[in-house]
């Protein structure tokens, strides 16, 4: 069964369809959470909360074809809220190793720079580069013209560049 049909069923209250959809995107969701929150435990908590929010909100979906963007955005919003509630993002070796990745400086800088961005920029960069979503899809879910999304995207990239330059290799870890 196609995703759109599943979404339609889920909107009508079919729990199986809903769970199937979450299954389809669980890895995307998890990675998004991990990229924002950088802890497995918190990412799993995020999955739980996003499943909850998605279930409660699914009836508000107007266009079945943008389900994925809609779902990822719930995750991004949740992560942004979590980040806001933290005073400072503290990175340590334990966290990094828990991700199972050894990071080089550039990647670490990039992640720090991302976390230093405003919410909208972070959201748009995540949607575009992390989930390879099309500008049109993003525009439709955000209910704004494609041109606006492009402007935001440019602003976000510019802000990112500034952040990276600001750091200039001077990484405080």
């Amino acid at each position, binding site marked *: 069964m196609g995703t759109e049909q599943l979404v339609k069923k889920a909107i009508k209250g079919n729990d199986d369809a809903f769970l199937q959809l979450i299954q389809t995107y*669980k890895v995307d969701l998890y990675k998004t959470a991990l990229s924002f929150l950088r802890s497995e435990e918190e990412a799993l908590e995020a999955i739980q909360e996003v499943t909850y929010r998605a279930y409660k909100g699914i009836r508000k979906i107007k266009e079945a074809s943008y389900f994925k963007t809609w779902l990822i955005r719930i995750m991004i919003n949740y992560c942004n809220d979590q980040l806001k509630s933290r005073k400072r993002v503290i990175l340590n070796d334990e966290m990094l190793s828990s991700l199972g990745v050894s990071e080089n400086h550039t990647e670490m800088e*990039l992640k720090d720079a991302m976390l230093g961005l405003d919410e909208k920029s972070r959201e748009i960069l995540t949607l575009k580069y992390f989930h390879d979503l099309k500008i049109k899809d993003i525009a439709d879910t955000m209910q704004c013209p494609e041109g606006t999304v492009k402007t935001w995207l440019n602003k976000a*990239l510019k802000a990112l560049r500034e952040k990276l330059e600001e750091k200039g290799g001077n990484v405080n870890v």
Partner: protein
Amino acid sequence: MFEKEEEQLTNLKKEFDNVPISLDSIDNAILTGFQKAKADERKSIRKKKSIYSFLAAALLLLGLFSTIRISPAFASYISEIPGMEKIVKMILDDKGRMAAVENKYYQEQGIYDEVGDLKVTIDGTISDEMGIVLFYTIESKEKMNEMMFGDVKIRAKDGTVLDEAFISYGESHHSEKGEYAFSGEIEYFFEVPIAPKEYIVDLKLKNKEFTIPLTLKEFKEKKEYAVQQTMELEGQKIIVEKVTIYPLRAAVKLKMDPNNKKQILQLEDLRLVGENNEVWGGIVNGITASGDKDSDREIYLQSNYFNEPKELYLVLNKAQAIDKENAVVVVDTEKMKILKQPAGNKLSNVRKEDGYLVFDLNVGKHSKYSGMGFGTIKDVQGKEIESHAQSMSADEESNMKRVGIELPILKAEQNPITIELDFYPLWIKGNEKIRIK
């Protein structure tokens, strides 16, 4: 322009592709989140039950049968399907459902369950995304004098939770001489759209349980009209937001202006009118309205789904209304005295009868008046008193109706009690006509 940044971002994504993932932990997290949402849903269903709804009782008027014209084609269709005649008799007072049958939207079921010497058959259904009307027959080898369902529940075979909004199955079948079969209808409406698929109906009858599976075929799609226009009767404003035409009924979404001086109660006069003055009025037998009295409300009308006129209007000439300042009945149940009531003093002779608090209601010349519905009851401390039943006599001739509400035994210090009203035979008038299509 930002090639370097874009490349870095793409690399970052690739990096996450290699992150080890515990799918089991993710699945557990999904399940926990899902169960939390389900628990909330069940809680909200319980809460929703306190929302008021209006029920209209069928008045069996002899003249009714002669006023319905049936085309020869329809008549022959009726005769083709066994048992169709009795079903048509049940929906004669609803043009929308008659048209649904005429347009072959009625779905034959013919599935039964037998327990002991009782047999319950679901003869057929008419359904749309918001509701199911079931037509049933109860049969017995012995003559039955009275029969009434104790409980009716519909559930989805695949376990999907249904947000049921209103259920009406309360018809009590009665026969002095005894009958071998009774037929009736059950209405089941939902808060959230349902899907056409397999359902299971659980019915309780005489402490016996019957289980009958149903398969609902594809529903016809609703037709929605955004309206956003205001109707005004004697300065009281009613905002019509939307009209949605479903096969089973038309739903008119209204909002009461918070600045209204009067509280608007029943809108039994609201109707849809086509360009040739064909009228689709309120639901005569079943659920007539739901929502919140002072703000958002939905009024249900007979559906014009299958007879689509070129032009469609919403028309209103009167509405029951009482002053907001004086919108409740206050009764001292110790002294059996009405201390306060809306203008007109239409309620009188308060008394207790078989666990009911009963009033006489003077409806004046409106002898066909059949409004019924007391709202919340509160004691003197403002604590809600639970009541589960209401009654109304339907003596056609008299201008005095008997209206009652079930009341538990109260302590003297709970007096006086305050009862909200969902009806009152006082009307505001006007001449409103809004074009919908």
